[in-house]
């Protein structure tokens, strides 16, 4: 098997299973990030009301 072939199959592994693995890690983090977003938004609303 030539280096070009090895490189091609490695690229397929990185793009296929590799990208899917990153997506799974994203799903793991998603809830925490969205909670952070909601907290920031509610803090901002409280601040706006206080300033008003």
């Amino acid at each position, binding site marked *: 098997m030539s280096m070009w072939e090895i490189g091609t199959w490695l690229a397929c592994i990185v793009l296929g299973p590799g990208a899917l693995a990153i*997506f799974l890690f994203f799903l793991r983090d998603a809830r925490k990030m969205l909670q952070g977003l909601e907290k*920031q*938004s509610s803090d901002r609303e409280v601040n706006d009301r206080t300033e008003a």
Partner: protein
Amino acid sequence: MIENLNLQLDLLDYTIVILYLGGMITVGLWIARKVRDFTSFFVAGHLMTTPLLISTLVSTYYGLDVTFGVSEVSFEEGVMAWFVYSRPYYLAILVTGLFVARRLKAFAFLSLPDIAEHFYGKGTRVTMALANFLYNLPILSIIGMGVLFKITLGLSEIQGYLLGASIAVVYTLLGGLWADAITDTFQFVLMCVTLAIAIPFAIQMVGGFEWIFAQLDAKYFASMGEVAPGYLFALALSAFSVFVEPALYQRIFAAKDERSVRRALLIGILLWAAYDWGVTILGIAAAAAVKQNLLPADIEGRQALIHMVLVSLPIGLKGFFIAGILSAAMSTVDSYLLLSSGNMTYDIYRPLFRPDMSDAALLRWTRIGIVASLIPCLAIAVYFQRITDAWVFMSTVLTPTTLVPIMAAIFLRGTRKRLEGLLSSLVGLATVLLYYGLVTLLGQEQKDSYVLTVYWSLHTLELWREYSLFFALPLSVAGFMLGSALSASARRK
């Protein structure tokens, strides 16, 4: 086979594409309810973690220009597309991940012109914001979507521009960077996985690697190809744009911490390299398919990849691949429209005309700016006969205007002076405009570009339009040094 070239999609393929487009709008609508302030809208509240950063970085930075551009070069020249065109960028990204990101995370910036104002004042901020705005208009991806919809859905190119751009605008308008990044994540998976699936089908169709090696010239497997040293150097210099790439900066600012950015960029390099290699091999497979009469001999290089894949994939997977290609385009269009809108509203309009603008008003104006940015994009896409003319200019205008002042601000010790940044960015911008104008007006058309031949004594010098950085970067450095000297002299007086 050529007569029966079947690029038409089946009902199943159409269903997959429609589900994908509907899904992106749904995500945008859902996330929009959670985004209520400008920082959340523009830099995702500085909350992004590594996996989200990887997805949004990889999918944003790689659009149809890379997908069709790299495969076009490999279709015509071979593996040099990866070694010559793509490799310098990985090095630049590595340097950014290891050195630049850490320095940037030490400040609470939201945009690249923010850095300019912090170190050099409003004049440099506005000059950089203008150059950023021109660079950020995602014209090539919008044109790519038009071509894609024309080939696959039979729409006119203008209908294709409007359909693809409108969907990207809707979810970006609603949810800003959050919607952009979360849709980017799905788009990232689609563009990578569909490419990984397409490669074995394409290679099998042309009879495997043995047939590819046997049928193509040896030049297809020469890593450095037959590129002139001057052109090689120009390509390597073009990778400097990574150091001031607005989408990259926006994501560095959006990251939870410096470690998340560093990890994302290092893992991203692996994915970018794999993606580039994937499209390089598909371009080479298309060249082998032409030799075997599986594809027409007069096929355009830019369309080689899409023809190769659509001919080799079965029904159903074609739909997924179109969704993957659309993902590559839309993830670029949405991110850069958001950035160009930020340039108009946050970087120029607010500091110059309404410094007291409230957060809610800024958010409203940025949303209006997203639609407004789309108008010049569509106008250029529709009216320009030769899009490369506009694109070469836009892609080269950023680096000379921003690189020197930004790198000096980040890395040089001591206090920066207003004149250093202002002169450096103005001289860089003026040189690019002048060089581009002169070579386009006085030069000869050659290989989709322009060349101005200068005769000097017994020598001739060929000035390609892509060589603007050779002049603009040194002059930008000179402008910076002049600004430094003038500031020192004024202080002494």
